[in-house]
């Protein structure tokens, strides 16, 4: 029951983060007004009298899609990180280690440098980076399987690292060859939620929800796998099949997040650790809790990114690390002493 109470608290905190994210900006919109606007849109309830009409357009047209995109991106990254750490039994593992980010980065850099970033109504960039992210993971896993039929974790981590560095090198060369676009490539690298529309939410939100449900289905297998691969096999887990399925799903989910928001580090790494301190290691609790924590954390980071130095935005990737590092140390070491 203790964990049910904690989960409720985390859910409320996530809702609070969403309201804060939507409410705070150049103009403050109170939580009550936000709820009224959303309910007005969804259920046709009347808006409170005296509320400036511009609020509705601002909340529905700009802030809400941005905040929701941040939430679902954070949730997707956190859940992917949790799964990667368990599959590879390595607390430092992250989906980016499979080459997802560098693959996506290379694809995005190519699109930007060729001057095609605006093609297909802006859809070409996310499509190409998602495709390249998946291709990189596919190559990582294929090479790892070729080198070592059992696809051991060390092999996957090493191949992923080598491939990441290789893609990064090509990306740097591309960026430096074209001074006009090099800054855009760099900015994309650090991630951003600015100027994002509902269409991005429409892509990332279902991916995050489906991803969470998919991994939840394998919660028990993930539990068993954290105790070692041989042991998991001897306990009845169809290891190779499940590992491939899960790695593929991680690549897809992370790829979606990166394609729309750019490379945002740290959330995937810290969210699982923080959540395990609060909920223990069982994936039935860790997976949903990671999603809530990662989402809320990303919303707050995005809030900081756009409000700390107006009118300039700080790249979100540097905020996640800036806020995340001390918070992580606090939770990790405070929790350690208590338990």
């Amino acid at each position, binding site marked *: 029951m203790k964990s049910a109470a904690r989960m409720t608290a985390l859910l409320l905190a996530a809702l609070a983060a969403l309201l804060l994210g939507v409410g705070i900006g150049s103009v403050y919109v109170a939580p009550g007004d936000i709820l009224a606007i959303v309910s007005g849109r969804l259920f046709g309830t009347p808006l409170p009298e005296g509320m400036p009409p511009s609020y509705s357009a601002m909340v529905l047209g700009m802030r809400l899609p941005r905040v929701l995109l941040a939430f679902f991106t954070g949730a997707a990254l956190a859940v992917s990180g949790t799964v990667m750490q368990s599959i590879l039994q390595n607390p430092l593992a992250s989906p980016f280690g499979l080459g997802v980010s560098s693959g996506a980065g290379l694809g995005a850099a190519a699109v930007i440098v060729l001057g095609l970033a605006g093609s297909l109504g802006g859809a070409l960039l996310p499509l190409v980076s998602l495709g390249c992210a998946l291709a990189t993971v596919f190559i990582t896993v294929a090479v790892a399987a070729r080198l070592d039929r059992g696809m051991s974790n060390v092999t996957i981590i090493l191949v992923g690292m080598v491939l990441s560095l290789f893609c990064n090198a090509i990306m740097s060369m591309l960026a430096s060859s074209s001074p006009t676009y090099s800054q855009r490539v760099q900015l994309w690298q650090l991630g951003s939620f600015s100027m994002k529309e509902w269409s991005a939410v429409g892509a990332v939100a279902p991916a995050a929800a489906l991803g969470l449900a998919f991994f939840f289905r394998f919660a028990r*297998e993930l539990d068993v796998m954290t105790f070692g691969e041989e042991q998991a096999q001897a*306990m009845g887990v169809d290891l190779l099949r499940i590992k491939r399925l899960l790695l593929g799903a991680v690549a897809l989910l992370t790829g979606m997040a990166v394609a729309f928001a750019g490379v945002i580090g740290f959330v995937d790494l810290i969210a699982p650790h923080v959540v395990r301190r609060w909920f223990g290691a069982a994936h039935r609790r860790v997976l949903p809790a990671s999603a809530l924590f990662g989402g809320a954390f990303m919303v707050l980071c995005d809030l900081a990114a756009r409000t700390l130095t107006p009118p300039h935005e700080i790249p979100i990737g540097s905020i996640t690390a800036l806020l995340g590092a001390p918070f992580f140390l606090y939770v990790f070491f405070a929790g350690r002493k208590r338990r």
Partner: protein
Amino acid sequence: MLRIEHLVCGYGGESVVRDVSFRVGEGEKLCILGPNGCGKTTLLRALAGLLPSQGRLELEGGDLRALPARQRAQRLALMSQFSPASFDYTVYETVMLGRYAHQRGGLLAAESGADRRIAEESLRRTGAWELRDRLVTELSGGQLQRVFLARTFAQEPRVILLDEPTNHLDLRYQVELMDTLRQWAAAGGRCVVGVLHDINLALSFADTVLLLEEGQVMDWRPMAEFDLGTLNRLYGMDVGGHMRAALRRWS
């Protein structure tokens, strides 16, 4: 009940274990002995289904290799060497994972009353009941191996394979662990196949001894008929003399 015939297995096309045949009866405890690199662990991994192999591998007449992973795990469990736990599961959760092979998968999978009863029995049988709410990351090596033994029991296998489970354990824990396994094997319809590095522990535990030399069976017979002198040849030293010298210090 367990029948192995002409088993061949190895790594990357090279056979490490060659033409090994033996049987293990109900209630029997068989220990595999042999010097380093003779193929003990490879043989055990092939039995556990972790390594592809050729030849017959049957439990009560049924081909073990034809079974899907879960069904194989309902019959055969592996108790490995001590390795520290790195994720914060409670002892109870860890033992409950032993029920994996018996549970239905899926989104709404839940543990049944029978699962809980079996997990609790296993905890009591291994003396780990008092530890049930502790985190596995906080336990000593001896405590943790007891928890893993409880998880192995919770799997309700017919055969338990031991891969040097007493490594790095204090003597008292070693003796306790083997006693618990002895009681488990005596309950009927069960057997144990083990690789134990410690020859003394192996000889005091086993009913039957299988000696491996360079991947082949050098000797296979009940303890009562076993000639300890064979060990001298296998290990290339005076094993008995060494043991007697050690014993003299105690008298």
